């Protein structure tokens, strides 16, 4: 491919109306090139290429991200059934009011919340502790880090299948272990808190190492002299952790809280596989049906795609609420300092 044809390609894709966006410096540089025709192509290239470079991302994002997002809103206002995709009737807000009247929706919302809390809080607390330990000068530090991250490479499906077996009623490792220290076996799939704990443990196992690495990265960015001066003031290691590390990590902690919260809101694969054949119901009594599962159950098991769309939009509303609360807390924390 010759140079000229490359530039010509850009000229074609350049959108009109960006003419005055060219940086002033371009003119003087372009005047160095011999032919005016070439220099014009060159200017087009400079002007248009940024848009050409970001275009693929936005084309795909528009087609498969933004458009579906809006279309989901439209679908949520219609009766749209899996069995008859070409037929949709306007319902207005009926899907939403029906959801808000459905006990299973509120059950799923409650389960999402409790599983979210009992998976996120221990996960981040343990991650913080591990990060602190990894931040010491260690022999074989890379090896430790890779080992901690191994669960991250395990898929939701594999991890959930393994944990389902570990938490099995008969012959499960967990029941055998608690039995060997004298406790009664727990029915991890049927009991409400037991199943929620089991589902949470999959999340905790998969993501703790990942979060530990994020904290470790932030810890390594804390200036050394802060610890030195704290040590000179007679602060113990624990006090240094509490009064130097934690405050310096506040933005990172907030970041992981937001990311984990988003992840918890979308929880889907773990409960689906943990439930086995009753997976999409979240167990026989819906005892661990999350919002993500409820959406799938409504849309692809019961075939109500319009209703599933309404669940999706309610999830977005919930996420925005959480984000707003997070921002308020962050602002509060900043003021307190």
């Amino acid at each position, binding site marked *: 491919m010759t*140079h000229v044809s490359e530039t010509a390609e*850009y000229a074609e894709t350049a959108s009109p109306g960006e003419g005055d966006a060219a940086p002033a410096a371009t003119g003087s540089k372009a005047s160095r090139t011999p032919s005016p025709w070439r220099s014009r192509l060159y200017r087009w290239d400079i002007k248009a*290429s*940024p848009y*050409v*470079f970001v275009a693929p*991302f936005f084309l*795909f*994002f528009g087609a*498969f*991200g933004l458009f*579906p*997002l809006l*279309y*989901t809103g439209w679908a949520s206002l219609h009766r*749209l059934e899996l069995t008859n*995709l070409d037929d949709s009737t306007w319902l207005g807000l009926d899907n939403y009011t029906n959801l808000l009247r459905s006990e299973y929706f509120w059950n799923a919302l409650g389960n999402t919340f409790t599983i979210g809390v009992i998976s996120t809080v221990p996960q981040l607390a343990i991650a913080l502790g591990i990060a602190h*330990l*990894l931040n*010491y*000068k*260690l*022999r074989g530090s890379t090896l*430790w880090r890779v080992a901690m*991250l*191994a*669960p991250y*490479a*395990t*898929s*939701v*499906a*594999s991890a959930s*299948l*393994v*944990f389902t*077996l570990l938490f099995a009623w008969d*012959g499960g490792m967990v*029941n*055998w272990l608690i039995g060997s220290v004298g406790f009664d076996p727990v029915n991890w799939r049927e009991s409400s808190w037991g199943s929620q704990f089991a589902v949470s443990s999959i999340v905790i196992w998969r993501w703790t190492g990942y979060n530990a690495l994020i904290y470790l990265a*932030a810890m390594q960015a804390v200036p*050394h*002299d802060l610890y030195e001066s704290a040590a000179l003031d007679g602060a113990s290691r624990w006090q240094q952790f509490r009064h130097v590390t934690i405050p*310096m990590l506040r933005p*990172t902690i907030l*970041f992981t809280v937001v990311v984990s919260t988003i992840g918890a809101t*979308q929880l*889907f694969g773990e409960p689906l*596989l943990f439930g*086995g*054949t009753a*997976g999409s119901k979240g167990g026989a009594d819906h005892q661990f049906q999350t919002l*993500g599962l409820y*959406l799938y159950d409504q849309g692809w098991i019961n075939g109500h795609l319009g209703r*599933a769309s309404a669940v*999706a939009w309610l*999830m*977005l509303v919930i996420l925005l609420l959480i*984000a707003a609360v997070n921002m308020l807390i962050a602002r509060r924390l900043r003021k307190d*300092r």
Partner: protein
Amino acid sequence: MKSKARPLGRKAAGRTMHAGPFTYAVLALFTAVSLAPLIWTAIAASRTSGRLAQTPPPVWFGGNLFKNLERAWTEASLGDAMLNTTIVAGSITIGTVLFSTVAGFAFAKLKFRFSGALLLLTIGTMMVPPQLSVVPLYLWVADLQWTNQLQAVILPTFVSAFGVFFMRQYLLQALPGELIEAARMDGASSLRIIWHVVFPAARPAMAVLGLLTFVMAWNDFLWPIIALNQSNPTVQVALNSLGTGYIPDRAVIMAGALLGTLPLLLAFILFGKQIVSGIMQGAVKG
């Protein structure tokens, strides 16, 4: 927090504290917890389903590993599924790395109108859950008669907002503005600059982004189980049908779980260091 600046005549070597035996012990415990389920998967995959229903559960390997792996490979069509997943994850990785590098370069080093707003939009999309687009995507796929075809899974994740942001953050520092200026002076077109300046500078980050993307694409779950079914599955779809009673043999299920994870564990053994540093890099700057 009170800041207590001290006149520092000495080197700030304060934080390089050596770990004591307690630290090693606790870390060893956590490492055991993080590796045990993986090792036990292999143990369970080497037993029979009858043995797995007995108490106490097996804690060491039995002799059925290859038989179970073979059954998972053929009966649960995990062989086909792994080939499919390799195609899917490979395509997504190529698309994401290529388009992220080019867009990241534009955001990091080129001046253009609306670049700030577009970057903000890009970052904003990372917050949108995938559930919000599955219904229209499904209608679309059904309309195009792409149900059970791999492009239905590839195209919606072909680009990534995280990737664009990741490459932008890297190129901000790794690519000196003078290098681009010099190339421009020589009359290089933008494509030439991408090829001869940007790609070489971005190569380490491209490799890391590629690994992270491959792991994510390999493990993607929600959309594939909606768009595909058992006739042409990815690994995760095949594992899902294993879990919902397609084959009720526990040992074969564990063999499937092991097979589905093995390629990524191998990647971890080979590139663990790069993956770790990639996650830590993304974290600090994100």
